[in-house]
């Protein structure tokens, strides 16, 4: 039985210490926010974020990226570095474009949340509500993915790497009768379901083996399904046949309780402070990890050089050695675009058109990220914004490139993980490279604290944004404007707890491919908010109908592309990541590009066709204001609908 495996005590201890430290920070943050009003303190930290806090917490450094990106490098090879390459400009674009003006406007109108900003800048409650609904929608998706990542780290710490990964007696898949019935109800044709009956009740330890046998049965069908169709069915069958995974579920519970706990205690400031603490941990984690991974590979290299009496191998750069071995284990595709295809199903992970798209995605996901925007609103001064730019520049370079190298080493060091289970590569590798060290378990715990921290940080931040969206932008604004501070406080806590419960329930059956969800919610928010934010900040002529059109067209194009690709199955499922949660790539480009174009055209066109905003309102945000006489809202509330 899987749960009986010996927990990795050292790793668990390190993680528990880490959780306790985060809780303690939450308590400190709680004390700090007690000055001033509950709302501004809890949701905005009294606009006091310094450079480090801003730099290391305001952009898209989610746990999804921390776990999902290495998993992609492991699966597809060097091409994934091109996939992430857009991050080289994210520090400048993230703070240099919107930063200053956003901080200024949010002060002029006293905005605490992003919907506040929309509502006040245009004096339109409806626009504010629309913005909050979109934020809630995208953030909820993002949260789901994060919880899975957190649970995975806890699980692997719990069961240890050896007992878990290499134990072939552990059943992971079994086709049951109930599963077959569910499949039949899940738009899989009856003849396909019938074809599976010979496999019923057999237990499989690995996904590869399972997928192969299923594919074998499917190929006996007449007429035989196409490669694409078979890939879709195999995936659905695998999802319905997975067995419950207790260590994962326990990990999920521990993770949820701790992260919801400290966010409840300290609010926004707790989210930011723990985020900062965790980002620093993450940096150290990655550096130690890189050294250990390269060291493990070099041991292998020396062994091989000695055995084969091969001086060329001995003198080779360790990274080059790792790269060459990884290519030998896979194929030459591992070294080039569009990436290695581990399932041998003809997948092109990153065609050049998608590489081009991703250079847009990371940049605009940063611009349109509600969590990031709130942090910029909370910054202390422009000095902090400037410093954050180069701090983040350095930080990103030292996170993303080393992580890629670590994952390349991972391909050499870890036995081939089944495709679809590669999200575990970072935790498993951490256990592996520290297994020989004297206090290895503890060190691996410190390394694992990095992804764990990244996930906790993201989740706590989103908890705050979602709770503020529901409590402030919906409840206080539209349901009970007279609610007392105490009532809002209690409601905020209730909402966060409820989100935790929902997250656990939705994650009991984990989503596959974290990164696909991260990309969906990131690009969705970008498609919806990037152009409207630019209009809000820079364009005097922008109008309420223009903003609404821009929001709706951006979001509509993105959701439409996911509907066409994910639901109607347009386009080849063999482009991009292996997941049924995928968009339709018109002309090979990511829907974000089309969404930005649609959003921009609609926003500009409709704005120009409608009446300009009230001059008094515009003057408040676009003309110089005497520093000692901030304009109040009176008299600017009307706006032509």
């Amino acid at each position: 039985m899987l749960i009986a495996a010996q927990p990795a005590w050292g790793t668990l201890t390190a993680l528990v210490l880490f959780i306790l430290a985060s809780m303690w920070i939450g308590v400190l943050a709680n004390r700090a926010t007690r000055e001033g009003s509950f709302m501004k303190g809890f949701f905005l930290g009294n606009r006091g974020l310094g450079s480090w806090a801003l730099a290391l917490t305001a952009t898209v450094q989610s746990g999804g990226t921390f776990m999902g990106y290495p998993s992609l490098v492991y699966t597809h090879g060097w091409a994934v570095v091109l996939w992430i390459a857009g991050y080289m400009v994210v520090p400048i674009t993230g703070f240099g474009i919107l930063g200053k003006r956003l901080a200024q406007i949010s002060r002029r109108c006293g905005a605490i949340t992003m919907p506040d900003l929309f509502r006040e800048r245009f004096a339109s409650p409806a626009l504010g509500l629309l913005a909050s609904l979109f934020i809630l929608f995208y953030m909820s998706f993002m949260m789901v993915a994060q919880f899975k990542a957190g649970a995975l780290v806890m699980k692997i710490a719990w069961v240890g790497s050896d007992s878990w990964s290499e134990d072939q007696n552990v059943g992971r898949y079994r086709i049951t009768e109930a599963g077959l019935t569910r499949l039949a109800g899940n738009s899989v044709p009856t003849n396909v379901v019938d074809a599976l009956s010979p496999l019923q009740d057999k237990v499989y330890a690995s996904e590869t083996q399972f997928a192969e046998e299923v594919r074998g049965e499917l190929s006996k069908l007449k007429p035989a399904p196409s490669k694409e169709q078979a890939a879709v069915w195999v995936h659905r069958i695998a999802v319905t046949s997975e067995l419950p995974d207790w260590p994962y579920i326990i990990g999920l519970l521990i993770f949820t309780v701790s992260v919801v706990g400290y966010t409840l205690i300290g609010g926004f400031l707790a989210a930011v402070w723990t985020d900062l603490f965790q980002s620093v941990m993450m940096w150290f984690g990655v550096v130690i990890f890189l050294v250990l991974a390269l060291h493990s590979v070099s041991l292998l290299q020396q062994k091989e050089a000695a055995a084969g009496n091969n001086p060329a191998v001995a003198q080779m750069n360790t990274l080059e050695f790792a790269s060459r071995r990884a290519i030998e284990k896979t194929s030459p595709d591992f070294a080039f675009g569009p990436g290695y295809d581990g399932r041998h199903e003809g997948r092109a992970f990153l065609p050049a058109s998608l590489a081009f798209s991703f250079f847009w995605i990371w940049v605009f996901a940063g611009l349109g990220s509600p969590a990031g925007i709130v942090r910029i609103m909370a910054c202390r001064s422009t000095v902090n914004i400037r410093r954050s730019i180069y701090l983040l520049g350095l930080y990103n370079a030292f996170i993303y490139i080393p992580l890629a190298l670590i994952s390349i080493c991972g391909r050499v060091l870890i036995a081939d993980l089944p495709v679809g289970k590669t999200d575990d590569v970072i935790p498993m590798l951490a256990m592996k490279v520290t297994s020989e060290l004297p206090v290895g378990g503890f060190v691996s715990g410190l390394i694992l604290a990095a992804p764990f921290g990244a996930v906790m940080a993201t989740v706590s931040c989103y908890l705050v944004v979602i709770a503020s969206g529901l409590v402030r932008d919906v409840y206080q604004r539209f349901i009970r404007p007279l609610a007392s501070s105490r009532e809002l406080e209690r409601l905020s806590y209730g909402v966060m707890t409820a989100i935790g419960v929902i997250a656990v329930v939705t994650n009991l059956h984990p989503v596959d491919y974290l990164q696909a969800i991260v990309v969906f919610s990131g690009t969705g928010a970008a498609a919806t908010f990037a152009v409207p934010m630019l209009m809000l900040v820079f364009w005097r002529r922008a109008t309420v109908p223009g903003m609404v059109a821009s929001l709706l067209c951006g979001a509509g194009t993105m959701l439409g592309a996911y509907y066409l690709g994910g639901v109607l199955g347009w386009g080849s499922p063999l482009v991009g990541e292996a997941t049924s949660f995928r968009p339709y790539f018109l002309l090979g480009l990511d829907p974000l590009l089309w969404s930005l174009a649609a959003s921009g055209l609609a926003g500009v066109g409709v704005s120009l066709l409608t009446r300009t905003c009230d001059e008094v309102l515009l003057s408040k945000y676009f003309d110089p204001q005497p520093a000692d006489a901030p304009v109040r809202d009176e008299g600017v509330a009307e706006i032509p609908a």
Partner: protein
Amino acid sequence: MPTDAPAAAPRREDPVLKSARREALIVFATWILALAYTIGYCGRYGYGRKLEELRYVYGFPDWIFWGIVVPWGVCVVFSWIFASVLMTDEDLGEDPPGTEANPTALADQQIQDPGAC
């Protein structure tokens, strides 16, 4: 075009708006340059090559090193130049008094009773 044309005297713009717009243009230009170079280079040398032609630079495949690692380094340096030389500091102003973002004694009363706002 139904727009409220500015009065005869040119409108004085907020200084933060002016500098922010200038900086945003510089940033967009940087992004486009980085995109053109990296995607151009990697598209040319990262796709459809034979393994025998692949060289390694400091352990990286050559196209990764010249197409991504080097420009990444350039971007880090540029972000430092941008932040310390090109970007100006401005006064961001204060939250308006009497709102939740800047509650005073008077404002606390207003929060309890927004009808007073």
